[in-house]
């Protein structure tokens, strides 16, 4: 192997591992973008709902004996249902007000969810085993061995993100959704139940966050603070990508995960802040974000 390869290999390895974080950034920023597009609400509770997904997975396993695969379906359904209730009882009352109130309300909800979980489970974190199916030898990528579960995260997140993109951009239901984003009154006049679509959109966005939470449970310890840590980075991702584009938010999520991985090679101390630094640079150069519309 050449000298150059020696230099490049750690970048390739860390960049690939960065895809794991990028997978979470992508799913979460996708959910935020979908909710914001339809409801004009920045869902500050997104991180808390992500964390709730992980906790529901833990509860299903320890209290009901339902394993990882069951949790992957059930937890998003349950948390999504909670999202539907939240949208109907609270968020729906704010649509006529300034967008800031939606942010403040969901911030309050995030505090309630986080505080409740901290009361119930403490702040130290609970273990969640890597599911049986992934306790196999790591995947050989040629330049590195990747733990099977992390490989799974990257693959499944890609499938979910592209599936969501497809559903919104290429299906009939998605076309109603996009139309309702542009002209809600007109779409309503065509006999489509726009309020119902808004409720469903919020529920689906929240379910996405919970799905990411279940995925994250075996990698990070399940703890009440995991959501807040993620959501603030995801906000920066959303500022960088701009919330106008579904595909944009997905791509930005993965790219930033990879850049974070690279940073871990040449300047590890900055890996926690690099996303924020990139956000600052993007604001200077292109204030509307990489994929944003002015």
């Amino acid at each position, binding site marked *: 192997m050449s000298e150059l390869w020696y230099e490049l290999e750690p970048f390739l390895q860390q960049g690939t591992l960065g895809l794991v974080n990028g997978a979470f950034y992508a799913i979460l920023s996708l959910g935020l973008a979908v909710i914001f597009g339809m409801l004009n609400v*920045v869902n500050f509770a997104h991180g808390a709902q992500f964390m709730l997904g992980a906790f529901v997975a833990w509860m299903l396993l320890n209290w009901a004996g339902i394993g990882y695969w069951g949790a992957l379906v059930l937890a998003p359904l349950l948390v999504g249902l909670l999202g539907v209730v939240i949208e109907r009882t609270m968020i729906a009352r704010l649509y006529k007000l300034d967008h800031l109130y939606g942010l403040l*309300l969901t911030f309050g909800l995030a505090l*309630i969810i986080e505080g409740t979980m901290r*009361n119930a489970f403490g702040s130290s974190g609970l273990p969640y085993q890597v599911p049986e199916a992934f306790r196999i030898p790591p995947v050989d990528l040629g330049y590195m061995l990747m733990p099977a579960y992390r490989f799974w995260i990257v693959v499944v997140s890609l499938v979910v993100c592209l599936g969501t993109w497809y559903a919104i951009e290429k299906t009939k239901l998605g076309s109603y959704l996009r139309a309702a984003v542009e002209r809600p009154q007109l779409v309503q006049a065509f006999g489509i139940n726009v309020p119902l679509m808004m409720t469903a959109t919020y529920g689906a966005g929240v379910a996405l966050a919970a799905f990411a939470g279940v995925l994250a449970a075996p990698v990070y310890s399940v703890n009440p603070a995991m959501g807040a840590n993620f959501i603030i980075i995801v906000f920066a991702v959303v500022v960088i990508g701009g919330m106008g584009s579904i595909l944009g938010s997905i791509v930005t999520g993965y790219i930033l995960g990879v850049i974070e991985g690279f940073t871990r090679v040449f300047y590890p101390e900055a890996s926690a802040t690099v996303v924020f630094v990139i956000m600052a640079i993007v604001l200077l150069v292109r204030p509307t974000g990489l994929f944003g519309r002015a």
Partner: protein
Amino acid sequence: MPRSQAIALALLVAFIAAAPFLLFPVYVMKVLCFALYACAFNLLLGYAGLLSFGHAAYFGMGSYLSAHAAKVWGFTPELAIVTGGLTATALGAAFGYLAIRRQGIYFAMITLALAQMVYFFCVQAPFTGGEDGIQAVPRGALLGVLDLTPDFTLYWVVAAVFLAGFLFLYRIVHSPFGQVLKAIRDNEPRAISLGYRSDDYKLLAFVLSAAIAGIAGGTKAIVFQIATLTDVNWPMSGEAVLMTLLGGIGTLFGPVVGALIIVTLQAELAQFGAWVTVIQGVIFVACVLAFRRGVVGELQQAIRRPL
């Protein structure tokens, strides 16, 4: 100053003068520090219409630098607080310059993200002492003469800092500059079409707000003789929002009332641990859904006079 506000100010001064004889001075000092912090935040949200979700950065850096100046550099307390205030000013200028490039909810997300960057910096930087924070900060002697170690002496200094900051903010809001800020808040395109450079106004408001938040943080560090990561983490930003929302956004006295309620609540509920977080969340939700004017805002509505 309208008569209703003059009366309210007289009541506030009377309360501050009487409080140390009736209540714990340290508790009242905490209320005053947080009230000043919330007032600084309210300058942005209430009068410029900018929701900053990252004021912990200015409060926290003010706190750290004041503590560091007093402990390591041996500054007198007033110089230490000024150091904290200047640090926050510089930080506010840099972050404000970035954040005002976007509006509305993006502005909130940007300020939050930038503040989190400061938090991670403080976690790693050696001078902050990591998880321990900067402890045993000396209260020192005012101008090198008046020993501030007794709570009762320090109280009058903190009261003076608070009142000076409060009146300064009043002056800003009621100056021509403040009028333009309100015009930008209500209708930015129109203000621009009248020839006002709205970005300059917003930036100056941001810097002033950050500066006063830094002074509030620095004063807090001197009072409690400690600066920690709590001062600079995101829940601290949330507290400024909560106090202002509960007290009344865009009212002169709202943030003070909000700070009084929240600090009291935290003191009373301290033994219940994370329930404090839950209750704060419930207050947020209740305020947004049913109580958007806040305590002082409702009062103002009832007596039909500005407060």
